[in-house]
C-alpha cells in the first residue's frame, strides 16, 4: 500500500509540474522554482512532513522536497541556536544533495566535454 501511495503522490506532484509546463506555459526554471517554493510553504504550514510519512519517496524524491528541506533545516537550527540558525540551517539538510550535485558534475566534466 505504501508503494501505491508513493506512486500516486509522487506522480501527482510530477503531473502538476507537467501541467505548469504545458497548460500554464511556464519555463522549466519557473516550474522548478515554483515547486521548490510550494514545498517550502507546505513545510512552513506543517503539511510536508505528514505527507512524507504517508507517501515516503513519493514526497521526498520530487523537487518540492528540496523546498521542504530548506525550511526544515532553518527551523530546526532556529530552535537550537536562535535566529542565526535560520541562516546556518538552510543548507543543513540539503547539503548532501548540493554537494553531490557539485561533485558529480565535476566528475562528469572530467570524462565528457559539454558543447552546450
Amino acid at each position, binding site marked *: 500500500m505504501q508503494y501505491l501511495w508513493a506512486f500516486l503522490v509522487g506522480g501527482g506532484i510530477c503531473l502538476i509540474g507537467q501541467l505548469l*509546463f*504545458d497548460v500554464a*506555459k511556464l519555463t*522549466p526554471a519557473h516550474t522548478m522554482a515554483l515547486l521548490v517554493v510550494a514545498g517550502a510553504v507546505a513545510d512552513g504550514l506543517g503539511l510536508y512532513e505528514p505527507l512524507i510519512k504517508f507517501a515516503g519517496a513519493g514526497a521526498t524524491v520530487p523537487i518540492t522536497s528540496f523546498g521542504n528541506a530548506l525550511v526544515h533545516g532553518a527551523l530546526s537550527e532556529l530552535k537550537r541556536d536562535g535566529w542565526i540558525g535560520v541562516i546556518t540551517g538552510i543548507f543543513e539538510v540539503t547539503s548532501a544533495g548540493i554537494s553531490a550535485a557539485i561533485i558529480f558534475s565535476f566528475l562528469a566534466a572530467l570524462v565528457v566535454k*559539454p*558543447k*552546450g
Partner: protein
Amino acid sequence: MRQGERTWVFPTPPVIVSTGTVVGPDEGAGPLAADFDLVHPDLEIGQPSWEKAERALMEQASDIAASKAGLAKGQIQYYVGGDLLNQIISSTFAARTFGAPYLGVFGACSTSMESLAIASLIVASGAGDCAMAGTSSHNCTAEKQFRYPTEYGSQKPPTAQYTVTGAGAAIVARHGDGPRVTAATIGKIVDLGIKDPFNMGAAMAPAAVDTIQGHLQDMGREPGDYDLIVTGDLAGVGHPIAADLLQRNGVPMERTTFRDCGLMIYDVAKQKVQAGGSGCACSAVVAYGHLLKRMKQGELKRILVVATGSLLSPLSYQQGETIPCIAHAVSIEA
C-alpha cells in the same frame, strides 16, 4: 523595378548559376537527401564546438557553389549572408574565410530569401555582375541560442520545431544558365501576439499570408500562376494555419501547390522532429537543393519561395515580449 507597394521586378532577371547545399545526419535521413551536395554523418563536422561546426557548413556550401560555377573565390563580387546566432557569427566568420566584400543580414529563418533578394538586386541594378547569397543553421547552436542547450535535455512540446543542420548558398550572376530570379517581395513585420517560442509556426503563419497576398497583389497575379508556392518553416502547426487564413481571405490557393519546406525536409511522421523543420538552412537547402533541381528537370516552371522568420531574441522572450515575424518572397522561373 519597384512594382506595387513592395515588390522588386527585375527587368533583366539575374540567373542562379549555381548552388551549394550541405546538411547534417537528420536531413540526410529525410526524403530529400539525394538532392543535397554533401551530407554529413554527424553533427560535429569534425569541429570542437557547435558554432565552429555551423561555420564549417557555411564555408563548405559556399565552396561547393563557387566550384560548381567554375568561379574562383575572388570572382564573387559580393557575399550577402546571415544566420541565427548572436551577431550572425557563422556568416561573418565564413565571410572572413571567403574574403569577398560582405553584407551581413538578419531575418532569422527568412534570411535565405532576404539574402537572395538582396544579391539579386545587386546584380539586377548593375552594382555587381555576380553575388552570392548564403545562410546556415545548426540544430545544437540554435537550441542553445533560443531555448536550452541540447545536453540539458529539456522537454519540447509537439508544437516545437526541429532546427535544420545545414547551409545553403546560391550564386546569382547577370549572365549564365539556370533558373532566373524574376521578382522579390519584401515582408513587413507582423505580430499577432504569440509569445511561445515553442510555437513559432503559428506565430509566423500570418506573416507568410501577408507577404503572399502582397506579392500577388503587386504582381497582379493569382496563385495559379505559380506551379508551387512554398513557405519556409511553418511546419505542421503553422502551415495549416496559413492555408486557412489564405482561404478565409479568398485567395484561391487550390489552383497551385502550397507546401512548406519544414514539412518536406523530414519524414515528420517517422523522424523525431516534433512539428517539422525550421531554421535558416531549412528553406535554403530545400529551395537551392531540391526545388532548383526540380526546375532544371523541367518539373516546375515558376515558383514562389516565401521564407518565414521569427524575429525574437532570448532577451525579448525573457522579458515577456511577443514574437515579431516576417516573410520575404522570391519568385524564381526556369
